[in-house]
């Protein structure tokens, strides 16, 4: 029990590190995912190919390999950034592929008739997209995006093994100090549960507010 109380600052630091990683990477993943999803439904062939390649490659890349390539490979190009930024880059890009797929299937759930109806009412492309398609897509997209972001929070543990300050990495410090290793991990597990449950609660609220009953 005193593993937690004695090392509250170590745990707190790790916890905050994980939260920070999760938040920043989520933002990056959502933005990139949105861009890629719009690429994938674009009417222009080469853009669509680019989006598809991005998604296919990243979805089939082991995240550890991506971390390895980004954290240890990019500096070889002379790109000097803090490790946390590299970790956010790797996590964000990886997750963007999954976000993209969730968004795309969301857009595809909107029946063709909706768009046709909008256009026959004389709406412009922007209006069709903004007033008809996206609001409907957004609703059906909440649950899959939520579970993707939970997966992201869990995946952020890999960053700790690459020496970014986060929750899982605290075990090294604490085991060197000679604390009971099982309890160390119990509190690490609790930390992750808090984060994943918080995201899931947030998306439950969103779902209740915006989601469609299916």
């Amino acid at each position, binding site marked *: 029990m005193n593993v937690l109380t004695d090392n509250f600052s170590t745990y707190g630091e790790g916890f905050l590190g994980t939260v920070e990683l999760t938040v920043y990477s989520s933002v990056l993943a959502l933005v990139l995912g949105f861009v890629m999803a719009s690429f994938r439904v674009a009417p222009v062939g080469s853009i669509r190919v680019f989006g598809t390649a991005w998604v296919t490659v990243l979805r089939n890349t082991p*995240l550890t390999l991506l971390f390895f390539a980004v954290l240890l490979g990019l500096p070889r190009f002379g790109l000097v950034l803090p490790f946390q930024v590299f970790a956010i880059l790797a996590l964000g890009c990886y997750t963007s592929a999954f976000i993209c797929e969730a968004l795309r299937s969301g857009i595809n759930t909107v029946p063709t008739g909706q768009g046709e109806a909008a256009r026959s009412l004389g709406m412009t492309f922007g209006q069709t997209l903004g007033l008809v398609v996206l609001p409907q897509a957004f609703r059906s997209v909440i649950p899959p995006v939520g579970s993707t972001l939970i*997966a992201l929070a869990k995946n952020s543990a890999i960053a700790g*093994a690459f020496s970014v300050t986060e929750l899982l990495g605290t075990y090294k410090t604490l085991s060197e100090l000679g604390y009971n290793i099982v309890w160390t991990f119990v509190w690490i597990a609790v930390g992750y549960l808090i984060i994943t449950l918080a995201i899931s609660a947030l998306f439950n609220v969103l779902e209740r507010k915006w989601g469609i009953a299916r």
Partner: protein
Amino acid sequence: MTEASALYDIPGPRTRQRHFAYGVLSTVVILGLLGWILHLLFDTGQFTYTKWMPFEYKGIQELLLRGLGNTLKAFAIAGALSLALGGLLAAGRLSDHRPVRWLATVLVEFFRAMPVLVMIFFVFVALKVQPLPALVAGLTLYNGSVLAEVFRSGIGSVERGQREAAFALGMRKSQVMAHVLVPQAVRAMLPAIISQLVVALKDTSLGYLITYEEFLHAGKLIASNLDYDLPFIPVVLVISPIYIGMCMLLSWFAGWVSRREQRSPKTEAVDVAAAAPGTLLPGGDPPTAPGP
């Protein structure tokens, strides 16, 4: 695919012309981007002889192959055990006895909510286990739990009438399961199961972090050697196509099975969504095709 979307009309001649212009422009931009990356690679001397020379040697090739073999070994064991654990947990969740159901639910939810890496490290560090069993244990607990959910939803999505008809014929629960529900569900679940195996294959690379001598570890050993000028980029260029290729092959196989099953009349009664990467959300599955 554009034709079927709610976003656009079928383009007319002028729009098609405009799209063609955009296409040329974006192709140029993308090619420019690729060219710039290639230039960077050359500029920072990633194609020098010293950096690629190690790959000429048999010893290095064997090291990489051994690593690949270890990766596949971990994948095979973890895959088989995950399927077994998944079946067990699914049976528990579908049990008629409340305590069993309860226990299985708690286990499934807990293991799905934990990062795989935390479980692997826990087994490796706290339970003091060798790298391979630790990796396999972590992967099995996580993927087994996810597969349990796939199995359960597969069984649950067999049309209700099938189960009712079977019970009406006087079959026992185990008979209904074995002869009616599972055979129909398995075919429909196959794509989702294979997709989850792709996740397991990808996650074997986590073994690298606990010094299991798998593919990435072999790569790192070469990449971090000062004698070869630290060939990180060459190693990544060699390793990633193989990793990505393996996963894509398996993903493609999942897609192929799914397409074949969709055409098969035997599975019409069932519709299983792919396993969602995350958890804890009611209806966390990706949306399936909407009704009219």
